């Protein structure tokens, strides 16, 4: 390697380091967001099984009526659909909430502590009429249940 190429390499390196530095100061890459394992692939997935395998490790689920989904039958405003997911299954580790009608179906993943009960509530956005899917991970297996919600005004974009 002659001096000229070395200089090239050095310049490239410092340039790359420079952009990272700018990103950090601009608040785009704070240490927290880098460390947090937000599964971007899962949240950007367009299919429910793809979203699940990227977030909970498997795309196959078993239907279970031990998962209860409390959601309205008809939601007037798709921007705010209250959903409560609870389950009688033992040792629930994760709960994922998906909406089949949304562009990116995965909405939320909850990781439960060992004393936490399988009962979480939140409000979700639904693009149009579709199913709310709740997936529960218990003992390494995935169980799912769904409930159809009719949406009169969509809540994603506009």
């Amino acid at each position, binding site marked *: 390697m002659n001096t000229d190429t070395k200089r090239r390499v050095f310049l490239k390196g410092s340039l790359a380091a420079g952009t990272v530095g700018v990103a950090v100061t601009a608040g785009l*890459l704070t240490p927290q967001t880098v460390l947090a394992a937000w599964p971007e692939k899962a949240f950007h997935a367009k299919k429910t099984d793809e979203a699940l395998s990227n977030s909970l490790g498997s795309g196959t689920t078993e239907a279970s009526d031990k998962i209860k989904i409390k959601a309205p039958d008809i939601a007037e405003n798709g921007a705010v659909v209250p959903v409560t997911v609870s389950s009688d299954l033992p040792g629930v580790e994760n709960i994922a909430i998906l909406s089949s009608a949304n562009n990116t179906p995965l909405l939320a993943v909850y990781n439960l502590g060992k004393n936490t009960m399988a009962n979480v509530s939140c409000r979700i*956005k639904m693009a149009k009429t579709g199913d709310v899917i709740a997936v529960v991970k218990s003992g390494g297996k995935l169980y799912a249940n769904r409930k159809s919600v009719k949406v009169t005004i969509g809540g994603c974009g506009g």
Partner: protein
Amino acid sequence: MAKSSIKIRAKAKGGVTTVKCLINHPMETGLRKNKKTGKMIPAHFITDVVAKHNDAEVLSAQWSGGISKNPYLAFKFSGGAKGDPVSIAWTDNQGKSDSATAKIK
């Protein structure tokens, strides 16, 4: 400090603590257009939420832009006595964060 973006209500009853919380946040998906300018509104939503009881994590959540504006979160855990602190912290995709602590009633 400005007023916290998080409201927490925690109640213990029969050995079970119910925590309800409301967070003030726009939760923009990044898919909406500003009607006046026709430009896309950039995505701005909470990605991570962590709830702790006595400094032990009881629930963590990962959210997408598909969670409604000013998100509501409720959950239950066993244990927890009156006066114990419950804290909730969030981080969004723009690197902003906030946290709040409340005592169990």
